């Protein structure tokens, strides 16, 4: 008896503490593998919660006002930690060499001076707008990625199980069933107990029955040492999450679409320049992108990773060597399917008169156009579905063409 119990403890579920990251994926294997060209597109959405300082990540060092505004934390093309020039005007943060390599290989792109339609400065409303895909806050029933999934032809249910994350990001919430993953080493309840409980829920609490069934289904096939919990800092954890997600998505019957979130970008104080707090986080993000690339293997060539954040930060640093909530920022694209090697920007300039409300980078590109362009390029969703269902009332934000090969 005792042996038996202990045995079960030892063969515990694969675990991973996510440290601020969450991951969720679609539970169906959609029929988009294209027999003709063998293309099997994958999409990963990375949400950076807390508002990324786009001007510190991809710095417009060719803009004469940048250095003055960003002051002590401004990036420069020289010095001990030079920024990586992407063209003659924009330079990438030195903590992101992997992204720089992908950019040189034409598999990464930057969209600058971008923003959702949200123009106030609350993180929480801003994230709701970013993830819900609605033009304003207050709609939190479903996310744009889930509605995009609903619009796709369904294939078989993914049979191989994934371990699950405690919460689903709003972007992936909705009618289309999803699976999540956030493994931790915990002895699991046996199937019999779980089945009895599901039976009780079916009679008394159908909503919980559905939720628990999903949780159990995902449970079964997670395997591989990569998903065991490992100690480490936030950088290591970002990589680890990406590695696990990539592993799941690389499988033939794995999810094709995933969303995950990294927290901690709200750099009000001591943001740091080429080194420091933001640099540390960007290094984690860069490592995560590299993990996606290596983990997806052959499938990387069909993959697009979209990195987005709820809004940007003030163009001028505040009184504590950080930046407060702003508006325009960047979005990043990476992956073998990205037509990269370029910074796409209708640059508004950083003169006081050009700043939004005299303080923020003025957005000149609608983030929805970028995402629509990716969804169209990867999955062939129509203008109409994108403008009415995926991003309601967004006909004005036309899909950006030519983002995907």
């Amino acid at each position, binding site marked *: 008896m005792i042996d038996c119990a202990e045995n079960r403890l030892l063969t515990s579920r694969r675990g991973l*503490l996510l*440290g*601020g990251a969450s991951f969720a994926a679609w539970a169906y294997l959609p029929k988009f593998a294209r027999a003709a060209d063998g293309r099997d597109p994958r999409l990963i959405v990375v949400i950076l*919660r807390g508002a990324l300082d786009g001007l510190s990540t991809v710095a417009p060092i060719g803009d004469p006002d940048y250095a003055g505004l960003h002051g002590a934390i401004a990036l420069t093309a020289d010095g001990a930690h030079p920024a990586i020039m992407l063209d003659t005007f924009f330079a990438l943060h030195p903590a992101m060499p*992997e992204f720089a390599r992908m950019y040189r290989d034409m598999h990464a792109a930057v969209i600058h001076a971008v923003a959702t339609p949200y123009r106030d*400065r*609350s993180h*929480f409303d801003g994230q709701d707008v970013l993830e819900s895909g609605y033009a304003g*806050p207050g709609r939190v029933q479903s996310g744009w990625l889930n509605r995009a999934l609903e619009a796709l032809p369904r294939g078989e249910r993914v049979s191989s199980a994934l371990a*699950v*994350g*405690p*919460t689903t990001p709003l972007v992936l*919430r909705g009618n289309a069933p999803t*699976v*999540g993953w956030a493994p*931790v080493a*915990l*002895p699991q*309840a*046996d199937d*019999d*107990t*779980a089945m*009895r*409980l599901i039976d*009780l829920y079916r009679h008394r*609490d159908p909503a*919980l029955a559905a939720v*628990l069934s999903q*949780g*159990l289904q*995902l449970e079964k096939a997670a395997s591989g040492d990569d998903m065991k919990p490992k*100690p*480490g*800092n*936030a*950088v*290591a*954890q970002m990589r680890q999450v990406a590695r696990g997600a990539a592993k799941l998505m690389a499988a033939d019957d794995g999810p094709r679409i995933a969303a995950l979130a990294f*927290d901690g970008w*709200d750099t*009000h*104080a*001591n943001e*740091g320049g080429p*080194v*420091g*707090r933001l640099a*540390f*986080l*960007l*290094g984690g993000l860069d*490592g995560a992108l590299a993990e996606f690339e290596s983990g997806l293997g052959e499938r990387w060539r069909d993959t697009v990773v979209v990195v987005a954040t709820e809004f940007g930060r003030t163009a001028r640093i*505040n*009184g*504590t*060597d950080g930046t*407060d*909530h702003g508006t325009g920022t960047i979005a990043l694209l990476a992956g073998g399917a990205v037509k990269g090697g370029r910074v796409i920007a209708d640059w508004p300039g950083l003169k006081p008169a050009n700043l939004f409300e005299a303080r923020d980078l003025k957005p000149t590109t609608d983030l929805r156009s970028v995402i629509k362009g990716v969804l169209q390029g990867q999955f062939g969703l129509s203008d109409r579905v994108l403008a009415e269902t995926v991003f309601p009332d967004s006909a004005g934000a036309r899909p950006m063409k030519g983002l995907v090969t």
Partner: protein
Amino acid sequence: MARDSQAALVALNRFGFGARGGASGDLINAASDPRGFVKAELARPNGVLLEAPGLQSTPQLGQAVFAYQDQVKQAREAAAKAGASTEAPSQAPPDQKPGLRRNLSLNAVATEIAGQMAGAKPPDNKPTDNKPADSMAKPDSMQPNAAAPPAAKPAPQPLNVIQKTFRAEALARLQRATLVECGFTERLVVFWSNHFCISASKGELARIWAGAFEREAIRPHVLGRFSDMLKAVEQHPAMLFFLDNQQSLGPDSRAGQNRKRGLNENLAREIMELHTLGVGGGYTQDDVTSLARIITGWTFAGRQGQLGAPGSFVFNVNAHQPGPQMLLGKTYEPTGLAQGEAALADIAHHPSTANFIATKFVRHFVADDPPPALVARLRDVFIKTDGDLKALATALVESDEAWRAPLTKMRSPYDFLVASGRLLARVPEDPGAYLNNLNLLGQPLWSPAGPNGFADTSAAWAAPEGIKLRLDIAAQMGARLGPNIDPLDLLEFAAADAASIETRKTIERAESRQQALALLLMSPEMQRR
């Protein structure tokens, strides 16, 4: 004998932390007078305070952190001097007795703080926390491409004073929640603590102060005035640290001029957005900046203690932006500290604040979609009573809606774990299992991912992985405790004849007591409130 078990469930689960097992008789007492059972705790405002031997004040704890940090620094410097190796491995001294158990007695912690700290060792930041600690940006951890976690597994180290304090505070809170009768006032504490949350993962000071913040700024006012709680919160060192106000300098203040630093609007924004008016509550970006200027100088004394006792709230006039400020259409004359206190008092009485608080309050206790009539009534009570939070709680308990609405809210992970502990009559002696399970379930104690606190809707907690993990935890409890209990007795304590036939049958037919206990803990009667 008018027994109403359904109303007892509302009293115990919607308002409280669930029935205690053993000989408490909670369900019977609640059934005979449900409203009276809930309201009884409101008559004992002192019962909300939490004082236990060894729990220290914020300045004392701040000083303990400063002393600890000094020791770490000295040890590092000594190590650097001694060994000229490239990397100082800054390990704890190896002379710790391996058999020594982590001692959590509050008195031991007090003794520890009093100055008998063991050899210095590097601060143990919690990398699994959601928000990166400031200390992450320390040079030694600042490797932009640090590829993998360190390969060598460090030997388990004794807890430092910060971790010990955090655990002692957690333990005191958990024990209180497990032992109280109904638990309504403790639920109120959790509600307000989440409303005015800080995050322990901000850094060492936040972690050591997390419990003291709740004891000092929240508990004394849970049955008092909102404006008093607001002031206590925004002047508490933990909040000033969490939202960076100790770094914010008036651009025209003496310190601002000398040090060429200036405003940080983080705290000012969250005061209006999250603590009082709410988004759309009628403030603008200019108001945020104004309030940020008004509260410059609100800080806490540092380790040198030039401004006051280290770790205590101080108003630093040298950092305060001089001159009058316009906020929400009103001019505040330059009266120093009083300028900010007057501004906070006015914001506390703003109609948007009444609306925001009433809505959140009803959403927490009654339904994700709060009944508008009830919200309107509580808003009026809030306005008429000058933000009397006891009157607010009383009005909620006296409303019909709160008793009629079906029990559809999910218990949060904290509620679930505490309710389970109460039903099993297990008073925790070590917070470790609770803290681990809270981490697993996505509600790490006093460490929400952002200043908006933990989610308060069923959708957030009724997620596939979350429920699956609850089942795993319930199964563990069943395996450990099931052999010694009668699950049907527990069902009587928890719900009696308010339990559904299906739940009763499921427990009766379980293949073992262990399984029966797991199923009981996971039953809708235990999960919904």
